[in-house]
């Protein structure tokens, strides 16, 4: 099978504008898109830049836009794309460093802002916390996240409001809020009780659609909203009495 790759190229230090470069690629075997990109780089153009590491969709390196869809290059099989023309673009909403390599810094910054670590409360217990599996299961959906950035990059709110933290960071926050071991004071959620936080989301769920790990991060955003509202009502009620 012969493919025509149209790959987004841009070196901000050299090029005035981004452009697409064509590469033809032939293969008889089943190949992943990542393997194809590596071969193109090796055999045709070794200035082509992209990220990768694990090749098994667990490290989160290789997210890109493939024929208009967000996905991990390593788990995308060429044959399954159903087209001999393959258009590859970097994740949008992030600055281009070179070609398909984007600056993930805003994404990591957003993550840092939500205090993405457990507030363990009491001192370390000798035997660890005792928690039933069904309690832990409530966060399993969220711990599947590989921090690939697809949800962040697809988000219309991220693109228009630089304050907005994005789905992955908020879902991570919910992962801790829901963790029976976490003793985060409710007041610490005030940072996301804002337009840059959970109220910024337009709930159209583009993030849920693109997530390669089925995290459904917007579920976490909605749950945080509910929690904030319920808590607020509780407070009003308490003060009212």
């Amino acid at each position, binding site marked *: 099978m012969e493919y025509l790759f149209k790959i987004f190229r841009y070196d901000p230090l050299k090029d005035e504008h981004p452009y697409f470069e064509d590469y033809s690629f032939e293969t008889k075997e089943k190949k992943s898109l990542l393997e194809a990109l590596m071969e193109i780089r090796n055999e045709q153009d*070794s200035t082509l830049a992209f990220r990768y*590491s694990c090749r098994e*969709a667990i*490290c*989160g*390196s290789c997210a890109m836009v493939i024929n208009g869809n967000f996905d991990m290059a390593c788990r995308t099989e060429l044959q399954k794309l159903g087209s001999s023309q393959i258009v590859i673009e970097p994740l949008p909403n992030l600055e281009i460093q070179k070609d398909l390599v984007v600056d993930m810094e805003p994404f990591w910054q957003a993550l840092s802002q939500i205090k993405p670590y457990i507030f363990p409360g009491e001192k370390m217990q000798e035997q660890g916390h005792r928690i039933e599996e069904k309690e*832990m299961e409530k966060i399993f959906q969220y711990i599947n996240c590989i921090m690939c950035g697809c949800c962040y990059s697809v988000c219309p709110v991220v693109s228009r409001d630089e304050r907005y933290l994005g789905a992955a960071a908020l879902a991570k926050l919910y992962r801790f809020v829901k963790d029976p071991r976490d003793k985060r004071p409710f007041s610490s959620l005030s940072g996301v009780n804002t337009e840059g936080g959970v109220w910024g989301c337009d709930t159209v769920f583009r993030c849920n659609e693109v997530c390669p790990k089925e995290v459904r991060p917007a579920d976490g955003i909605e749950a945080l909203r509910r929690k904030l509202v319920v808590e607020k009502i509780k407070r009003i009620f308490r003060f009212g009495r």
Partner: protein
Amino acid sequence: MISQDILVVGGGLAGLAAALSCDPNLKVAVVSKVHPLRSHSVAAQGGINAALGNSPDGRDDSWERHAFDTIKGSDYLADQDIAELMCQKAVSAIYELEYLGVPFSRFPGGVIAQRPFGGAGFPRTCYAADRTGLVILHTLFEQSIRKQVKFFNEWLVTKLIVKDGKCLGVVVYDLATGQIVPVRARAVIFTTGGYGRVYSRTTNAYINHGSGIGIAYKAGVPLRDMEFVQFHPTSLFGKNILITEGARGEGGYLVNNKGKRFLEDYAPSAMELAPRDIVARSIQTEIDKGNGFDNQYIHLDLRHIGEEKIKKRLPGIREICINFAAIDPVDTPIPIQPAQHYSMGGIDVNAKCASLVEGFFAAGECACVGVHGANRLGGNSLLDTVVFGKISGEEASIYVKGSEETNNSEKFLLEEALEVKARIEEWEKRSSGVRVHRLLEELKVVMSENVGIFRKKKDLTEALEKISELKEDYKRVYLYGKCLRYSQELVNILEFDSMLDLAEVITLGALKREETRGSHYRLDFKERNDENWLKHTLVTCKEGKPQISYSGVNISKYKPEERKY
């Protein structure tokens, strides 16, 4: 010039554990060729060992039993005092991880769940379904955010700078800018992981070139026991993505083309849960005998485990099978074959993770502290990374606080960086020569065919010749893409230098070791020979050539006996 008290090289589990345990009053930074969460540790699946005794079948477990299993599993090449140290610290290490937020799976009653693993007398492997590496790495990264650890990501270390037996820092290639920069550090800790990509079939990430081990070797630090290369029994056929031992721990069968659970011929009592070296050889033997499918793979059958348990305990495996092999293990057996998986050997360090070079430490898979000997047990590597990662950070801190700062090292560091730069300019200037990916392909084939699961003198000698030819070819390598920013080609050229050295050291050690022990199986010397070979191999780089020597194994409690499973 960037200057640190302690520089940790590597952002995997060992690196993050090291950085988090450094004295907070010191200036500490982590350098990594990829963002920490992209490190190979994230792919670890099955779990981490500690004798918690939580399983109903594991009440009598103890750290001593764990140490015994580790030592027996190592085919008695582990240093017993160090294996004991690790197993003793295991229990508190797990509880600490749990306290820091690792979402371990649970048993009824809420205690951390434990599953059986190969070579272990009791169910001892703590896990979070089959994404244990992911959750531990993310947790330690989260702790690094809490503690505001400084990271320099996408920096490739290319050289360790040593003067008069003392470590002064490193030279790095900064991928984002294309610059070569020296970094001064009073102590350097390497946690650079394994070298799986020296082999064609490997479970390791693409980035696992093992350059850290090679860089230390070039700087004069001895490498220990490098001939011991672990081949994992069960990697997905073709892609070689790992299918965790946990799949057998949960009850999976290995079946040949006659429908037989053939391990009854090789390890009748432990069956599928014999140590990895034994299971991997059994599988390869079956395939070689014509009992495989298409003469290439055998089946890992999980069907009888049932959909519910597969979905709960092995969701990642199921996802891998669906994504990468288009099969669902709930109703189809998984085609598997052995593949390179882990490096028992590495940078020679003592119980403090300190090397021969003052101020230079190493931990995790790149190091050989002596716990895995000739064969590592599943679940012991993650343990190694967190236990010795932590020790390395603590010890490096003690060292820095007790040592004098070397003055006027800057000039020397700059010169060393210039030397690296000059080499790169040379590659850049050439308009023809050999391309590095071709050399890498050739090296992988030699290592897989000649220095694989089964070894013999002729193959090993041939491999050494081939490696020295490749070393010659490497002198003519050139940079085809003339842009140094984010140049994976440059990364590959720089790291290939190390890969050649590693291949040479592995092969030389394997050739000299005329016995069979653990993962090292010699067709021409099929027995273990304690009289002559119960010793560690040490290889040191002297004027560019490997020099081999041997050192004793610490044997305290457990007398070497025959390994039967």
